[in-house]
């Protein structure tokens, strides 16, 4: 199997070669890599290939026409801005939550820790319906907010709320382990050198955290870009105002225009991939610089 042989060249030298009777715990590198690649192909790559096939059936003019349709462009803006707002909010709130969960002992800590994963467990449509009900003008939150003149449900703000809800775990779960590993001695060293609490956070804790925080925010952002279920119930879906891109894809599908749906989806996919790659690369370079490898 040629793929396995090529991959073996990447394995660091200190590991025994694939063919030799190795002393590693799990034998059968060739087999396990083969199975992994097969599953990646079937589950991840095949649908993507389908998407590309669908798109490549269009001419570039057609493709450009579909993805630059004014209503679609408006949806890009709404989606990107809402995702940005939601991920920034999560960056802040998620950091706080992770901090509290790692640094303090309090009754109910384990419960809160478990609840953080709720957005992953809950069907997003259910989340959307619940949020819409809560924030509707006569809902629990909505009735108070409307007295203050704030409308959440069926506005772009609602989109932000839904996105923030579904993508919160990304930030908490990426920051948490890094915080746990942060040696208390680093803080003690800084304080013994006379640094104020604010300075310790700014110059010692945050620099150690931010690569993880950035990853968390980026994951949260890309997740929000594609969020559909939770958003459509609360967004109101008014053209040019509160329509998200994933809804546009859905609309095209409803019209049996698979090519157009694929074209719009490819835009979202491209943006997400480029951003994740960029952040991974940037982070790798940063870590390489300070680790000196």
């Amino acid at each position: 199997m040629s793929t396995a042989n090529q991959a073996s060249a990447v394995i660091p030298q200190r590991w025994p070669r694939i063919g030799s009777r190795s002393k590693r715990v799990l034998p059968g590198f060739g087999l396990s890599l083969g199975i992994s690649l097969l599953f990646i192909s079937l589950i991840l790559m095949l649908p993507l290939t389908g998407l590309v096939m669908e798109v490549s059936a269009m001419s570039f003019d057609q493709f450009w026409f579909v993805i630059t349709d004014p209503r679609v462009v408006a949806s890009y803006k709404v989606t990107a801005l809402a995702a940005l707002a939601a991920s920034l909010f999560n960056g802040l709130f998620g950091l706080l939550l992770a901090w509290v969960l790692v640094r303090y002992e309090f009754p109910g800590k384990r419960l809160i820790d478990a609840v953080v994963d709720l957005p992953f467990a809950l069907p997003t449509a259910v989340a959307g319906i619940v949020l819409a009900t809560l924030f509707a003008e006569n809902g629990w939150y909505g009735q108070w907010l409307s007295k203050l003149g704030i409308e959440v449900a069926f506005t772009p703000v609602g989109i932000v709320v839904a996105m923030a809800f579904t993508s919160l775990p990304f930030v908490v779960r990426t920051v948490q382990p890094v915080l746990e590993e942060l040696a208390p001695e680093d803080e003690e060293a800084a304080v013994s050198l006379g640094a104020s609490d604010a300075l310790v956070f700014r110059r010692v804790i945050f620099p150690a955290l931010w690569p993880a925080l950035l990853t968390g925010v980026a994951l949260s952002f890309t997740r929000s870009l594609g969020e559909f279920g939770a958003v459509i119930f609360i967004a109101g879906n008014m053209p040019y105002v509160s329509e998200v891109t994933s809804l546009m894809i859905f609309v095209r599908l409803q019209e049996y225009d698979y090519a157009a749906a694929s074209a719009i989806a490819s835009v979202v996919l491209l943006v997400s991939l480029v951003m994740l790659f960029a952040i991974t690369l940037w982070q790798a370079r940063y870590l390489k610089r300070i680790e000196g490898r």
Partner: protein
Amino acid sequence: MTITVDGINKRFGQFQALNNVSLNIPEGKLTALLGPSGSGKTTLLRIIAGLESADSGRVAFSGKDVTKLHVRDRNIGFVFQHYALFRHMTVAQNIAFGLESLPRKQRPPKAEIQKRVSELLDMIQLPHRAQRFPAQLSGGQKQRVALARSIATRPKILLLDEPFGALDAKVRKDLRRWLRNLHDEFHFTSIFVTHDQEEALELSDQVVVMSQGNVEQVNEPTELYARPDSRFVFNFLGQVNVLSGEVKHGSLSQGNARVTLPGIQHQGSAQLYLRPHEVRLATVPAEHANLPLRIEAVSLIGSEVRVELRPEGWTSEGSDDIWEVGISHAEFNDQRPTRGDLRYAVPEVGHLFTGKDTQPETVSWAEAKSFPRVRLIN
């Protein structure tokens, strides 16, 4: 600055880490806090630094009460066992941290900070590593950077928590000597924590031996080694050979073993403690002592030959029922002791502990000096 610790108590849950500890650390001296793990030495150091707070008691620097003072205001340098360097900062940035953290009014100008950092880099002999990150340094280099960082603001007090604990033997030795020079040059009042008796005895002006949250003994290294005043200190400072038995009519005996004790009035149970260099080995018993032992192992490495022996017809208490005696290489070449040989221990000087009284009485046998080390009777 002198450091005064007065009646410190500290409890972690059910565990009494420090039990009414009082200490005086003289100005300009290098003091070692020595003890096994769990003896409370690190806790005491952290309380002096202000990183931990005591349940009760008082800490004073030069008579000024600092018990309630925050660590950042105590103006101490603290060095951690695992360096605690900021890994995202370069060596130079790490060293500059303390100076840059000073309140705006006291903070020196940038150029001044840079100058100070480069002086410190020269001092730790790492000027060419200024722009490196901690991960690119070896353990010894990291610890030197940590030291430079801790003294950048010119503290009067330097506290070191097992500063060489994470380093290998060779680097440890170099760094020890270097720290001693540094201390002599800058006249800090320094305290360092260690569990290594050799390190404590070699490096410090004064040793505080601790066990189970108590101070066992405070003395200069040479005095401490010569006159340990408790069984614990005796056991902790190097290898010791013990004969435990009954004293009757000025003679301590147990099984086959017997030692006369000139000048001892005590009757009843007692333990005789002997250091490896206070005992000779002979092929026949001496007048004053009959301590038959069989050789278990001979180790030639080092300036002395270390012989491990097992009591024959009696038992030793303590480390695995084994006695350890050091002989010179010359003696070794004469006697050629090998595993399985029978030898007799001839004590020259011993320390007798009687009953619960913890102060030992020193016993010496003048006749041992003239006793021939090797007597060939075949």
